[in-house]
Structure formats: C-alpha cells, structure tokens
C-alpha cells in the first residue's frame, strides 16, 4: 500500500497518456483525435509537475524565515510545464483550425472517408 501511496500520481499521469493514445489510435472522428492529443498533453504536463513535487511542500518563496529549502517544491518543472502548456495550446489551436478547413473541403470529419493520399 505504501508503494501505491508514493507512486499513485505517476500511475495517474501515465493512465491519462495511454487513454489519449488509445483515442488517437482507435477513433475515426478528427475532433476526437484532437481531444486525444489534448489528453496526452495534459498527462505529460501532470507528469512533469509531479517530478518536482514534495508532499505538503510550499512554493519556493522565502516569505518566512522558518521555511527550509527542503520543504519547497522544485520550481523548474513548473516553469517547463508553463512552456509546454503554451506549446500544447498552439498545437491544438492549429489542429482545430485545420479540422475546420478539412470539414469545409470534404464535408466530413470521419478520417476513414478522408483518404485521398495514401502510401
């Protein structure tokens, strides 16, 4: 049980990534695929935050002298996640705008019907 308590958040992050991957691989609707990509992004971001997480830790700001650096969470992963979120949002925005244009050209979002290009 102790193991579960320690590592449950990692399992949660990777579960999100795998759910997202499953959606991308299995679903045929482009919007659902984009949602899947969004889920993968969220899972990865959560994972990054958890690498620097300390249970009951505080923000790394020396507002009270009594606080020790050991009790502070690592700020670097949070800065990384902030960047990763911005990148993820722009990718999703681009994907959705492509989906709109695709719908305009083909009249459908079903990826099985959009098959002009093949290997």
């Amino acid at each position, binding site marked *: 049980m102790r193991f579960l308590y320690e590592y449950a958040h990692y399992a949660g992050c990777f579960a999100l990534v795998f759910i997202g991957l499953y959606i991308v691989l299995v679903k045929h609707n482009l919007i659902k695929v984009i949602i899947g990509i969004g889920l993968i992004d969220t899972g990865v971001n959560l994972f990054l935050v958890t*690498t620097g997480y300390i249970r009951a830790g505080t923000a790394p700001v020396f507002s009270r002298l009594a606080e020790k650096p050991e009790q502070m969470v690592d700020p670097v*992963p949070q800065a990384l996640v902030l960047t990763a979120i911005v*990148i993820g949002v722009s990718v999703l925005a681009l994907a959705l705008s492509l989906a709109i244009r695709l719908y305009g050209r083909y009249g459908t979002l079903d990826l099985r019907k959009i098959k002009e290009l093949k290997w």
Partner: protein
Amino acid sequence: MVSPILLIAVPLGLAFAVLLVGFISRKLVKYVPVLAMAFNLVVSLLLLPRALTEPIIVRTGSWGPPFSIHLVAGPLGLLLASLVALIGLMVAVYGTDYIREGATRMYHVLYILLLTGATGIVLTGDIFNLFVFFEILCISSYALVAYRGDKAGIESAAKYLIQGAIGSSLALIGIGLLYGMFGTLSMADIARNISSVSPLTVFASMAFLVTGFGVEAAIFPLNAWLPDAHSSAPSSISAILSGIAIKAGIYTVARVLFTLYGAESVLLFVAILGLVTLLIGEMSAFSQNNIKRLLAYSSIGQVGLIVFALGMASVTGVTGALFLIVSHCLAKSVLFLSAGYMIHRTGSMEISSLDGMGQRMPLSSLCFTVGAFSLIGLPPFIGFAGKFTVIQAAVEQAGSFFTVLMAIALVGTVIEGAYFFRIVQRLYFKPQSQGSPGETKGRQEAPVSALIPIVVLAVMIVATGVYPKLLSMVLKPAATDLLNKADYIRHVLGG
C-alpha cells in the same frame, strides 16, 4: 566580436518585424527572409573558424552552464547553422517570386520561424530548450504544409500534425524522466552523470526521446507523414522540409544517442533501422508517378543511409553521415526548386508531363540533372564523396558485418539510379507530348529569382564534389564534436 546568440535573436526579431514591415510596404515583405538568412549566413561563417579551435559557450543571464540555458556553438552546430542559413537564403530568394497567392505575409513569418527553430536546435545545449525550438520548427512546418489550402495540403498537414504532436509529447516524457533522475536540463551535465545510474533505468528515457524526435527525422516506422507532407507543400517549403527539417531531427537523434547517452549498444539496431528505412524509401520511390512524391520517398531513402552511417559510430562513419547530410541538403533543394517551376509550367506533377523539358527549360533541367546525379553518387558531384566516405567507413569497421550491410545499402543506390535516370531520360530524350492544347513550344525558362538559387546550389554541388577537402576540413572536427562526449562535457562545464 559577434555572439552566436544573434543567430537566433535576429531572425526571431525579424520574423515578427515582417508584420510591421507589411504596414509600411507590402512589396518589401518578401525581402525580410532574405535579409534574415543573409545575416545568419555571414555570422555563422564568421564564427565557424573560431569554433573549430574551441566551441563557443554562450551563457544567458550570466549564470554558468549547469544552471542556465546555454548555447554550445561547436563545429557541428555552426556547420549545420551555416547550412540552414545557406539553404534558407537560397529558398528565400526563390520564394520572392514563387509565393504569390494566399497570405504571403504569414508565409514569410512562418518561414523565418521554421529556420530559427532549426538554427536553435543545432546550437542549444539545454535539452528542454531544444524541445522548445523543435516545437517552433514543427508548428511552423505544420502550418506551411497547409499553406495552399487545397485538399491534399490540409489533409497531409492534419496527418503530419497528429503524428508530430504525439512524437513531441513522447519526447517531453523522456525529458521529464531525465529531469526526475538528474535534476538538471543541461545536456552536458546529464551526460556527465548518466553513467552513475544503471543502464536499464536510463533506457526508458532514451527510448522516449529517440522515438519522439525520430518522428521528425523520418526513421522507418515513424515516417508515414513525410511523403504526403513533402509532396503537398509548396515546392519551396518541400525543399526546406527535405533539406532542413529532417536534418534537424537527425541531428537531435544523433546528439541524444552520442552525447547524452553515449549508447554504443543500441547503435547496431539504429544502423539496421537505417538500412530498412533506406530500402523501403528507395523501393517506394521507384514505383511513384508523381515527381514530388518520388523526391519525398527518395528523401526517406537518404535519411536511411545517413542513419546507417551514424550507426557505425566511427569518426569516418560520422564524417560520411555529415557529408551525406550536406550533399542531400544541397541536392534535394535543387531538385525540389527546379521541379517547382517545371510543375508550374506544365500544371501537372506526373513524371510523364516532364517530357522534353530539356528543350523548354534548359537551365532548370541541367541543374535538376546535377542534383539527381549527385544523389545517386556519380563522381564529379558531392554525393560521390559522401557515399565513398560511408563505404570507406564500413570497410574500416572491425568484422565483415558492416561490409555486408553496406552491400545491401548499395542495392538502394542502384534503385535510386534506376528512377533518377528514368526521369533524366524523359527530360532530354523524349519529345514534348503534342496532345495538350494551349501549351506553347519553345523556351519557358523559370524567372531569374528562381534560377539564381538553383544555379548557385548546383555550382556548389559541383565545386564541393570536385574539391571535397573544402568540406572535409570542417566535417572531421564536426564528427569528433559529435562523437567525443568527454570533450563536450569538458568544454561546456569547464574543468
């Protein structure tokens, strides 16, 4: 005393200045990419001699390397940065006339951003910073593939985006794992500490990183997006994607494998993966009727050969791989650029429509032939020097295993020869088809703005082919830069 950081800062600033220039004069907009890339070319060539003696380390915010985001402008980084700038400059000149329709201002913004991303990738020494530049490159190339807004463009952009987004998420997981283990993002610092943990623990992060970045490098199971994206994009963008974007991916994979992990045990697997990529790419290229798809598949084949050469992990092997990177960059840009106006003139991408182009567009056809012969590896061109070095490396390798693999790889070259000779034969020895009305006979050469870059690149192919020392004196230090992990760590972290 110029700093390598200008190579990133100036184009990034100019990219957004495009929109401001657009308010003043719409005609000036198309010259901004030319300006940005000319600046980059001059600066990177100025810095190259200094980097050959010792890598230039740029600290940002006056913090020393393990803590800050730092740039490492070594021989390899600056060599690739000047290559990016050279191809970027040529394609920018080509683009001044070629890109007429659509949101041209956005094209130029995205174009500069793409090249800034590529420059950043090869110069940075921080793994997360590398990821950010990688995303800059990827996002701008997704958008540029869809630039024309036709069915094929949007569809292939969507395909490219989905695969690329998953790839970069996987790479980010790998970076997260590395940070969790080592608490640092500096590549030199990670490389120094990587031997302190068991190989099995770092293997997961390596697999994530190589798979993630391998999508952009188009290594075999991850390259389904490439033929569609390269063939549906405007020709100038195809040239950049084939010439620069794939190379940025290969550079990243090589940096991760050699510098970050120093992974000798997986290199044989990498070499075989390269071989499979090569054969599949060349065989698919052989059966294509669409000229741009053919060139795209041939890019896959060349990537396979480069990865194969990298897998040998000897100085000669890596030098050969870098030779091939340069030669493929030059040759594929010439091919895509000259094919661009041929397609424009005939209105069709079918190979059969190229009949008799040797009379209609003599100069473009000549340069196309130079590029094609260089890719096959015929002697007076640079491709010969590259392939020759790779074969030399394979023979030098202990045991005959790599010699056997190289023999298989050369089958790919034979196939390559078969399809390129077929096209060149059509260009020169077939009369122009009569049936299509409205087609005028006689010369219809591409405009001067297109001919200048094509001819310059073709001349460079011949010049470096006749005198390969010109390149190999830079390539040898670059190969050692990639292979010698201890030196890299020492230069960056000092001591």
